């Protein structure tokens, strides 16, 4: 069997505040294979974002092991983690996080700038990815000249631009209306099916999770359900 993209064993994350401490992740063990499309579901505070941040090397676990594409990344230096984020990971956030007063094209070029890719190649590839998500016509617009749906598509283009092993999206439709949400999820589905991009989407909406091939449900920092597709009963048991 091929090496899984993500392989985590007994992942724990605690937050200390004074006397008490919060358990955000409580022994998570799972694998994500290449080409999978995973939704991470669960109620608010169940540890979904914490999990995604650790998988995305934005945060470190308190204990447990993490292998990314077979490499042990549990205890890498800050710089090494930045380099892996730059080359192997793509991020999409709920609040788009585009640079202000900067064109869509330049926003998409940013990860390539940090990966040290030349300007002509950056330009070409950024335009290409904008075309893939269908917003090449607003390439020169800055974020305040775009709709939320357009901004999120630009953010998706930015996450794709270094051909990452894994694209991580935290509530990518959280700030969008039903129609735009649907379009965004269709783009993810298409990217997964046509390009084989491995995708992990964090959401608490069953309608969004339904697009995924596999739904992992969290509760109190633990995986309580892991199914090949969204099972309504599972979601109902956690109160959604």
């Amino acid at each position, binding site marked *: 069997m091929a090496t899984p993209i993500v392989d985590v064993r007994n992942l724990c994350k605690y937050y200390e505040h004074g006397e008490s401490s919060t358990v955000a992740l409580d022994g998570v063990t799972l694998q994500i294979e290449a080409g999978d499309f995973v939704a991470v579901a669960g109620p608010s505070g169940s540890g979904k974002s914490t999990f995604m941040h650790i998988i995305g090397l*934005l945060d470190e676990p308190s204990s447990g092991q993490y292998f990314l594409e077979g490499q042990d990344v549990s205890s890498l230096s800050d*710089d090494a983690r*930045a*380099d892996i984020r*730059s*080359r192997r990971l793509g991020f999409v956030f709920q609040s788009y996080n585009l*640079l202000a007063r900067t064109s869509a094209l330049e926003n998409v070029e940013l990860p390539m700038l940090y990966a040290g890719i030349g300007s002509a190649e950056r330009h070409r590839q950024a335009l290409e990815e904008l075309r893939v998500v269908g917003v090449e016509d607003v390439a020169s617009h800055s974020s305040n000249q775009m709709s939320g749906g357009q901004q999120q598509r630009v953010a998706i283009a930015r996450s794709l631009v270094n051909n990452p092993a894994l694209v991580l999206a935290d509530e990518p439709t959280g700030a969008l209306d039903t129609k735009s949400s649907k379009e965004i999820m269709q783009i993810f589905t298409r990217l997964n099916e046509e390009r084989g991009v491995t995708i992990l989407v964090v959401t608490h909406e069953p309608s969004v999770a339904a697009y995924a091939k596999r739904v992992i449900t969290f509760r109190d920092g633990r995986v309580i359900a892991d199914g090949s597709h969204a099972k309504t009963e599972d979601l109902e048991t956690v109160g959604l």
Partner: protein
Amino acid sequence: MTLRLALTALLRNRTRSLLTMLGVIIGVAAVIVTVAIGAGARASIQTQINALGSNMLVVIPGSITMQGGAVRTGFGGSSTLTPADGLAIASLPGVAAVSPAVGLRVQAVAGANNWQTQLSGVAPTYTFIRGWPIDKGMFFSQNDVISAAKVCVLGQTVARNLFPDGSSPIGKTVIMRGVPFIVIGTLTPKGQSGLGQDQDDAILVPYTSAMQRLTGQTTYVQMLMVSANDPKQISMLENEINVLLAQRHRIVPPAQNDFSVSNLADIAAAASSTGAVMELLLAGVAAVSLVVGGIGIMNIMLVSVTERTREIGLRRAVGARAGLILRQFLTESIVLSTLGGLLGVIAGLVGTQLVAALAKWPMTIPPEWIIISVLFASLVGVFFGYYPARKASMLRPIEALRFE
């Protein structure tokens, strides 16, 4: 790449970048202008003293003491010098010429015109000592001195004001303190002194005439001007005059001399060192304003780091190393301060021209100060930019992204 990132970020916020630079611009401009004022004053004192002649000594009554570069004189405090002292000095070897001098303010009247001016009673050697030739007519002679003749020589400004119709003043009568003097010559124009005095606003008469007919003080003169043959022997001559006059005035140590001999080069050095201290002081004050400008940069950069926390988080998320964030922010503040320094130099040059034109103050800008102030501005940028830049680079990506 860092420079590009920094420039893009600065251009994205033009107004703020400009306002941030303002402190440095003003600081550097202030340094340039103050240094130019100081250096200009020093240069003009120097030229003025050079114009008097580096081979000139001045003997005045009273004692003179040098204290920490400042000259204190007891000028006019006592009357001790006589024309005979002058004659004695003139007989020393190495002395080219001596002229006693007596000065007073007078109201000069010629027909319907009158003019308030400075009168000097001097000897015929005066034109030689000052290097100030006659323009028209002639200077008075030794005979005029002996007879205390009622003759005078006019500076250009006096001639112009007493005879505004342009007629030749020679042969005309000028009345001063009720005494009529015949004009026998005019001096060539000498222009302004380094400190803006009109040197042509002067009337010269024989010192005997001034003493006997105008001041009534017939024994003592106010000053003896001595011109040496060779500027190199000036300090030797200074000693000889000290010895000679001490003898003539019967001064026995430990009594203090009742006169003092000053070498113009010494006075020049004292004046210019006082100028240099002033200049440094002014430049210091200006440099403080530059540091204040630097603190302004630090303030804005700190605000900018907080404001751009999410941006920093995003940059980190898409792969920027912490060191790159540090370099980007540091470069931003260095660019701001250096650009501010360059604009400040331009503002300083314009300001210098303005002050020179408006205040009629001589200004010179030593070129090394331009380089020094721009370098200093850049350093200010490095120094005050480091802390905010470090703060930006220490932000943990996850917290930066969560920041509201």
